[in-house]
Structures are given as structure tokens and as C-alpha cells.
């Protein structure tokens, strides 16, 4: 059994006690300590800025041309915090409870409670940095609701919350760059962890412009490289988002936890053809006001607006009257898939459902009429006023939809379908966010810790910033306090030389395959296998077939890949090949994990384990644990379990009816 090193004491007191008793590093010693941070999204940028403010020497790395472009920037809807500004009954306990329940009782109580505790500090910190959150006319912060909750606790900046939070963290990071406390390495990719005496002591990074391999020492290494949703090829992740840093850490001894816990987001723009390179999310906030439906008749041929009210099936409102269109993501996605599989889907592909704003437009129009005290208003005028309100709330999302599809969502219902969006699984970490390799940490989406088997909306931004601003600075410091006697190790040390040599050999062997197929074409095939067999629903036979297919794909990849260009130059195809090679291996582990977990929970739906109503059927007796996999060589992993103990919350079947 794995030990998560959760502090003793009452749940409410654990984090306060930890902070009160953890070891500190004095300012003179901090100046001598070097910290490496891989990735500059919300987790990485906030950790880099905060650690540098404390006085550590930070080296930060990102593959993009600027830290401001990390994919956190694309988060739309918002960030949760237990501020209870709406006086609607919110509290730290309720945010904690909603997150545990939303995660289908597969996350760690102590971590989630800490997350809920620091959520309020995050909002304060971001406001102080100048993050322009939405405000009410009185000048105070505005909130909206999100899936899986019954309170309004989501703070937002139109549909660009991730962008604004990341710019805040990026500016704090650049301030530390200007002060000389952070050395920023853009267009760099981490290609291995360097271990000395069993501890992480640095990394090998490739300069993506010159192809040169660089050796960097650090007393601690923080992996903040995001999730692995791009294993599916088609996802809402950025094209460059990859698992490579986390996978290298895994190969060096860090256990990988719950890889089969992936999130399929219900509201994305449907696939339009084989050319598709990525999928675009339509924010969950749209489910606040939009109604989701399909026709009641199989094979319906009429246009959406011609289908009368009585012949529409608002299936989420029908199945889940208490939460309606705001059920958690996994529930909404499966319900949409169920309707499409049963033949009720819409659009040319029949793999889509409607997200309809007509009712919201009318409702908002009527509110405007009564606000302005008008009488004798025509229904056209009401609709026009309603459209203005909807435009203010969701205008940028509606514009995005019409650019991609060429349709006007103010006039016709949008078509949406679930798509891969987030990965709850990731590197296993203890309470201190330390992996099973001492000195190696994982923050944000790269770790597994807070969202269990399903993440609630507006919680990813919260977790990334919680880890980076408020958790890692304490927990990493607690361990660095023991490192003050260890001077920086020169990168001429044999361990660095050896690691760099191995990375160079791997790159050369990839380049020397000299086959016929591009990395992209392998990635597409990988994505199809994983999406079909380890996507929204999984079964034993399919997973076994997928494992065999992935092993064959890996073989073919390593014998028929073509990388154009040279090693020692700017070569995006080489970068991609490196990432796809790691994704193929990860895909296999996802299937191994999904096969071993003989239950359904959250985003992991095994067809063999469901209730008569088609809801996920957990098996708490056998599977109330974190599955942490240790790499044992090619195609081999050993399972380690971390038992999940619920001291405060009593697990039950999730009920959103």
C-alpha cells in the first residue's frame, strides 16, 4: 500500500497544522537553492513566480514561444471559490463535498479539503494582480453556476477566464524574470529527469530552435506540464499539449495514477470530417441557459426550428430533474451518447445533439421588458432584446461557433457532441505533491490528486493555481530544508552526461528509422484506437484488443516513421515524433488500467458495470483505491494501491435526479 503522508488530525486542521509545523529555509539558504519548473501554465507559472518571490533560484521551461501561451489560456468558463459572496449557502465544506461527490468518491479527502480552503485566497490573489473578473454594477465580483453544484461560486471573465488568470500568473512570472530570480527557457522541451542517489536533481532539455541538448541542475524538479488528453488525437487540448515530461518522469520511477480517468466534455463542436485536427469546446457555462435536446422520432428529417415543442426530448431535464442541464460532465456526455447511439442524433453525422438558446433568449427578453417598464411589446422586440442579453453573456462563444460551423446560433440551435477535454489521472503524488521519486513533484493537471474519477467544471483552474501559488511553496520548501547542506551539482557530473547521451541516442534512433509514415498519421491511428475502446465507454474485449493493437502500432511506429529535416535544427516534426512515441506507450497503460478497474465510476464507464437505468455502478468494496502503476520495462507495469479512506464523507451512489 502506498502512503500519501496525510497529516493526522481533523480534516479542517490538517493544512493549517502542516503549514504551522513544516520546515522552513532561511533567506540566505534559499538563494542557493535551485528549482526547475517544467511547463508555464497556471500551475507552472504560479509556482515559478511564487517560488522566485520567496528567493529560490528558479529555472522555468516551456515548449511554446512564450509562457503566456500555455493551454490554460483556453479555459473558458471560470474558476470556483468558496467565497459565498452570493449568500446562497456555499462554504469550504460544500465545495469540498461537491468536488468529492463530483469525482465519484475516487479522490483524497485531505487534498480536496485543502483545495477548497485555498480557493478563496486564489480569487484575492488574482484580483490583486489586476485580473479583470466580471463585476456587477455595484463594483463587486460576479458569479455564475456550473455543473454538479447548486450554488453560484464560479468567478469568471466573460468566456476567457483561463486567459485572464494565465496572463496574471504570466505577468507575475515575467516580473520575477526581470528581477533576475527566474531564468526563462522558451521553446525548450524536457526530455529526461536526471537522478543522483535516487533523487531528482535536474533535467535534460532540448532547445527546439537549435536542437541542442542542455543539462540543467535543480535541487527539486516540478512537473507542471498539463494533461494527456491528446493521446486521443482529437481533443480540446492545444496541438502541442503532450505527456512527454510526465512520461519521462514515469519511466524514471514516478508512479502513474488512474490513467483511465479521462474526462469527456459534453459540449463541443462535433467532428466535421477526417481532416479534423482538433475539437473546440463550447464552455460549460452555456448549460446555464441553453437547453439540450434531440427529436423524439428516430430518423427525424425536419430542421430543428420546424420540430414542434411536443416532439422534442429534453433528455437531461427528463432524466435528471433536480440538476437538469447542469448535471456533471460525465453524466451529460453519456446521456448524449446514449441518445445518439439509439438513433436520435442530429446533423449530417447523426453524432450530435442540440443546444438550444431560443427559450433563454425569450426569457431574457421578457426580463428586459419588465426592467425597462415597457408595455405593448411585440414578440419580435422581445426576441431582439433577449438576443442582446445573450450576446453580452456569451457573445464570444457564439461568434466562435459561427466561425467554425458557418451557422448562426442566435437563430438555429447549436449542434454539440462530447469530446476529450481533461485528464483526471496523472503522476501519483503524496499530500506534498511529491511523486514516488524524491525531489520530483507534479502540480496541476499533471498530477492525479484532486478530481477523482471526474472533475467538476471550473475546478481545473482552481487546482492549478492552488498547487502553484499556495501549496507547492510550502511543501517543496519543507523538503528543500533538508537539502541546504547539498551544494549545486555541476552538470559535468556523470549522471548528467549519461542522461544526455541516452536522450541523444533516442533522438538519433527515431530519426534513423527513415520509414514512410509521418508522426501525425501514427497519432491519428492511435487516437482512433483509444477513442473507440477507451473513450466514453469501455469493455473487456475492446480493451484487450486495444492493447494488442497498440503494441502492434508501437512496433510499426518504430520501423516505419519518417522524420524530415535534421536533428540539430528547428524541426517540429521531430518534436512531434518524440511526443507521439510517448503517447503510444501511455495509451497502452490507460487500457491496462481501464481493464483492471472492474467497476464504473465518473469518466470511467465499463459497460459490464451499470445500474438498470444505465448509471455508473461503483464497486467500493473492491476498488476504493488509487491505482498507481510502476513502470517495469516495455509493456510491463506493476500495480500499487493507495486505499482511499473517507473519514468525513459517506460515499453513496451519486444522485443528480
Amino acid at each position, binding site marked *: 500500500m502506498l502512503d500519501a503522508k496525510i497529516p493526522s488530525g481533523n480534516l479542517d486542521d490538517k493544512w493549517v497544522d502542516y503549514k504551522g509545523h513544516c520546515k522552513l529555509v532561511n533567506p540566505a539558504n534559499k538563494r542557493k537553492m535551485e528549482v526547475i519548473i517544467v511547463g508555464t501554465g497556471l500551475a507552472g507559472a504560479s509556482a515559478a513566480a511564487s517560488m522566485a518571490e520567496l528567493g529560490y533560484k528558479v529555472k522555468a521551461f516551456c515548449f511554446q514561444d512564450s509562457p503566456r501561451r500555455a493551454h490554460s489560456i483556453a479555459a473558458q468558463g471560470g474558476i470556483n471559490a468558496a467565497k459565498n459572496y452570493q449568500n446562497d449557502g456555499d462554504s469550504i465544506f460544500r465545495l469540498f463535498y461537491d468536488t468529492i461527490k463530483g469525482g465519484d468518491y475516487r479522490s483524497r479527502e485531505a487534498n480536496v479539503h485543502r483545495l477548497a480552503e485555498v480557493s478563496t485566497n486564489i480569487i484575492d490573489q488574482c484580483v490583486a494582480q489586476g485580473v479583470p473578473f466580471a463585476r456587477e454594477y455595484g463594483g463587486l465580483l460576479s458569479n455564475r453556476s456550473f455543473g454538479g453544484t447548486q450554488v453560484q461560486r464560479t468567478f469568471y471573465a466573460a468566456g476567457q477566464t483561463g486567459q485572464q488568470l494565465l496572463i496574471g500568473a504570466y505577468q507575475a512570472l*515575467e516580473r520575477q524574470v526581470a528581477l533576475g530570480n527566474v531564468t526563462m527557457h522558451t521553446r525548450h522541451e524536457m526530455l529526461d529527469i536526471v537522478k543522483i542517489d535516487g533523487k531528482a536533481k535536474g533535467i535534460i532539455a532540448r532547445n527546439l530552435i537549435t536542437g541542442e541538448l542542455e543539462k540543467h541542475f535543480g535541487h527539486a524538479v516540478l512537473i507542471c506540464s498539463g494533461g494527456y488528453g491528446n493521446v486521443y488525437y482529437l481533443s480540446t487540448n*492545444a*496541438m502541442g499539449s503532450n505527456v512527454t515530461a510526465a512520461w519521462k518522469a514515469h519511466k524514471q520511477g514516478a508512479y502513474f495514477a488512474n490513467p483511465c480517468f479521462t474526462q469527456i466534455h459534453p459540449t463541443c463542436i462535433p467532428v466535421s470530417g477526417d481532416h479534423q485536427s482538433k475539437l473546440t469546446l463550447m464552455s460549460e457555462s452555456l448549460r446555464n441557459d441553453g437547453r439540450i435536446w434531440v427529436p423524439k422520432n428516430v430518423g427525424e428529417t425536419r430542421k430543428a426550428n420546424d420540430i414542434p415543442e411536443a416532439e422534442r426530448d429534453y433528455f437531461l431535464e427528463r432524466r435528471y430533474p433536480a440538476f437538469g442541464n447542469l448535471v456533471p460532465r460525465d453524466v451529460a456526455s453519456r446521456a448524449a451518447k446514449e441518445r445518439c447511439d439509439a438513433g436520435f442524433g442530429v446533423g449530417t453525422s447523426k453524432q450530435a445533439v442540440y443546444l438550444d438558446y431560443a427559450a433563454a433568449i425569450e426569457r431574457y427578453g421578457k426580463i428586459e421588458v419588465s426592467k425597462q417598464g415597457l408595455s405593448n411589446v411585440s414578440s419580435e422586440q422581445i426576441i431582439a432584446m433577449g438576443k442582446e442579453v445573450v450576446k453580452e453573456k456569451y457573445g464570444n462563444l457564439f461568434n466562435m461557433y459561427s466561425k467554425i460551423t458557418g451557422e448562426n446560433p442566435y437563430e438555429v440551435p447549436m449542434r454539440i457532441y462530447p469530446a476529450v477535454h481533461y485528464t483526471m489521472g496523472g503522476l501519483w503524488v503524496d499530500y506534498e505533491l511529491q511523486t514516488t521519486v524524491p525531489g520530483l513533484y507534479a502540480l496541476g493537471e499533471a498530477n492525479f490528486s484532486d478530481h477523482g474519477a471526474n472533475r467538476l467544471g471550473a475546478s481545473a483552474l482552481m487546482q492549478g493555481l492552488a498547487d502553484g501559488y499556495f501549496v507547492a511553496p510550502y511543501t517543496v520548501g519543507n523538503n528543500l530544508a533538508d537539502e541546504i547542506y547539498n551544494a549545486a551539482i555541476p552538470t559535468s557530473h556523470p549522471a548528467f552526461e549519461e542522461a544526455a547521451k541516452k536522450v541523444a541516442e533516442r533522438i538519433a534512433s527515431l530519426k534513423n528509422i527513415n520509414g514512410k509514415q509521418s508522426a501525425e498519421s501514427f497519432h491519428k491511428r492511435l487516437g482512433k484506437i483509444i477513442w473507440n475502446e477507451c473513450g466514453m465507454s469501455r469493455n473487456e474485449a475492446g480493451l484487450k484488443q486495444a492493447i494488442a493493437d497498440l503494441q502492434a502500432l508501437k512496433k510499426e511506429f518504430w520501423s516505419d516513421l519518417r522524420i524530415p529535416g535534421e536533428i540539430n535544427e528547428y524541426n*517540429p516534426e521531430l518534436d512531434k515524433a518524440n511526443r507521439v512515441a510517448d503517447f503510444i506507450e501511455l495509451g497502452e497503460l490507460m487500457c491496462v488500467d481501464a481493464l483492471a478497474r472492474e467497476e464504473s465510476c465518473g469518466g470511467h464507464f465499463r459497460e459490464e458495470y451499470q445500474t438498470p437505468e444505465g448509471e455508473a455502478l461503483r464497486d467500493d468494496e473492491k476498488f476504493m483505491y488509487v491505482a498507481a502503476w510502476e513502470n517495469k520495462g516495455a509493456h510491463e507495469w506493476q500495480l500499487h494501491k493507495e486505499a482511499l479512506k473517507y473519514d468525513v464523507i459517506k460515499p453513496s451512489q451519486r444522485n443528480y435526479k
Partner: protein
Amino acid sequence: MSQNTMNLKVKVWRQKNANAQGAFVTYDVAGISDEMSFLEMMDILNERLITEGGDPVAFDHDCREGICGMCSMYINGKPHGPWQANTTCQLHMRAFKDGETIVIEPWRANSFPIVKDLTVDRSAFDRIIQAGGYISVNTGNAVDGNSLPIEKQNADDAFAAAMCIGCGACVAACKNSSAMLFLSAKVSHLALLPQGAPERKSRVLNMVAQMDKEGFGSCTNTGACEATCPKEISIANIARLNKEYLGASLSAE
């Protein structure tokens, strides 16, 4: 929702590295669906170049949903192509006609040196931010978020300026390669908020100094930047920047 396919020519700027001589090369791309995005058309071209043993066209791109600011192509004489308020990655092929020749160039500005083909180095923008584009508040120093009410109009205006994605289209569009729209968006965002007040003067002076040091040109108010900005950042921000700069210069020690 019916798909139309077209055959096109793309005339692309190819340049091996920063020091090499560049030139246009024309390629045929066939069977392009009008539902494809512009970058998916480029993917198809690159896939073909790779299988034919050629060198694919290098271009920056990442989120492909118009927010990261990474994509940067100068298409038929306009940064990000023909659509208003749009990024290259959000441009779709229905903007073009069968048989058309599309000309694709990188951002051209001395302060954005070419890395390869259509990829340029925009690190000058990061250095401008380093010069003062932030509020100096360490983690853990914040008061309650609602202890400082902000007038909705100011909050909305600050947000409108903060929407800048740092893509550099404003510089590419400007005949002087001026970075004034980018800089003014950041100065406005922070100057409009009470949190930004303590550093207001030093911020604008230092950021303008850094912009000049990076070699960006002067603003001559042609408005090309505003017309091309994918996030519709208003040129009114430049007026605010000038006011901020003048005020800070007059009252500086």
C-alpha cells in the same frame, strides 16, 4: 452543411533559418473541403511534403481556437487573413474560392526575426512585459477580493484591453512595425484598475523605453493595427497610452 471541395495554389514564404535567404515557393493543394480550417489545409500540404520526402512548412500554432496567440500568418496581404476579428487558426476555407492562389508570408518586422519559414521570434513582447507590465504583488499579500469595488465600466474597459493575445498582428499590419497597440493594451488594462495605480507612472515610462529599445517603429495613427486585431483592441488605448506617457513624463523627477 454540404461540403464543397476545391483545388488551390498556395504561394508560401520558405526560409531555412534566420540567416538564410528566403523565397516564395508555390504548391498545388487539391481536394480541400470548405469545412476545413486554414491550418488543416496546411496540415494536408505538410503531410504530402513529408510523404514525398520534402521539407514541411514550419509555422507556429497551438490552441487552434483563437486564444493562445501562437498562430501568425500573413495571408493575401493581411495578418490572419481576410476575416475580421479573427486568428489564422479560426479562418476556414469557405473564405476562399476554387482555383484561387493564396499568398502566405510570415509576420515581417525587424523586431520579429524569422526562425524558419512562417515562424518568427516574438520574445520582444515578453521583454516589454518584463519592463513593467504587471502589478507588484507577491503571493499571499492580497486582501479580500470584494474589499475593493471597481466601477463596472472601468472593469469592462480593462477587460477589453486585457483580451490582447500578444500575437503581433498589430506589428505585422503596421507600415512602421509599431508595437503601440500591444503596449497600449497592457498599459490601459493596468492603468484602468485601482490596483495598478501605484506603479502607473514608472510602468508606462519603462515599457515605452523597452519598446523603443527593441526597435519597433513609431505610431503614425494609420489605424491598420486596430483593423487587423483579432480581439478588436481599440486604438483608443493608444490615445490613453499617450496621455499616460505624457502625464508620467511631465511629473517624473
